[in-house]
């Protein structure tokens, strides 16, 4: 895993205003976006971003530079997100999307219900509305894994650290998220 600039690490540990400020300026937009990626509205995303950075500033002296600042921040972010959502059902061990996936193939593993090729207009408001709706139906951790991978483009190691899961588990989450989204979009008619 990449290491952080030692000078920045020292500055953060000493809680030097300039170093803390540098982190806020570098990552606030990304953290806010991840909140919206997790399905929060603009207001909630701002609140979770604020809580993330306040905790970061207050606990900066504990940052040892063993992970990057970004991983550290996303870790705080993810805990704040869960706090903000406490009470939501945890992901079920068994997921009905697995059964749906199975049902798309015959016993030999050939498609029995083939996928439909997507249309080329990915910019239309309709498809954006559809994906928003479909993301809304995707369980928290699957959705977060998908967004960190596809939008924030974090590495597998980094995502596993943030979500505190193994790489095998991450594969299962991405598999479920993508198949759920694909089924959802297909049901809305994606050939547009």
């Amino acid at each position: 895993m990449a290491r952080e600039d030692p000078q920045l690490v020292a500055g953060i540990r000493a809680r030097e205003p300039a170093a803390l400020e540098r982190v806020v300026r570098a990552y606030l937009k990304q953290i806010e976006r991840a909140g919206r990626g997790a399905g929060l509205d603009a207001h909630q995303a701002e609140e979770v971003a604020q809580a993330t950075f306040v905790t970061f500033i207050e606990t900066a002296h504990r940052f040892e530079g063993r992970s990057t600042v970004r991983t550290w921040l996303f870790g705080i972010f993810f805990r704040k997100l869960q706090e903000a959502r406490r009470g939501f059902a945890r992901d079920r061990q068994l997921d009905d999307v697995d059964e749906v996936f199975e049902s798309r193939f015959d016993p030999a593993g050939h498609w029995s219900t083939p996928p439909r090729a997507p249309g080329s207009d990915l910019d239309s408001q309709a498809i954006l509305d559809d994906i928003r709706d479909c993301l809304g139906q995707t369980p928290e951790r699957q959705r977060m894994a998908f967004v960190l991978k596809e939008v924030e483009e974090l590495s597998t190691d980094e995502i596993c650290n943030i979500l505190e899961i193994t790489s095998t588990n991450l594969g299962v989450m991405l598999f479920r998220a993508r198949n759920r989204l694909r089924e959802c979009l297909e049901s809305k008619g994606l050939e547009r």
Partner: protein
Amino acid sequence: MLSCKEVATTLASGELEASGPRRRLAVWFHLLICAYCRAYARQMRMLGEVTRRLLGREVADPRALDRLERRLVERCRTLGRAGDPDG
């Protein structure tokens, strides 16, 4: 020869990125001859692309974000160093 189901599982789980050259070649060959799995692969790419557009386009009120940035920077200046929570 990989089955469609194996190819789809490899694509959706992100396993392909971590796979060795033999597996990659087998998937590539399957995609070459299977239009259904090509459609599936296109769907997988589309999901990421559409999500990136959704989140990139719908920026929350940029001024609210600027205000939050100023508040946090202010906090760095007053809270950082001034009060050591362990001290």
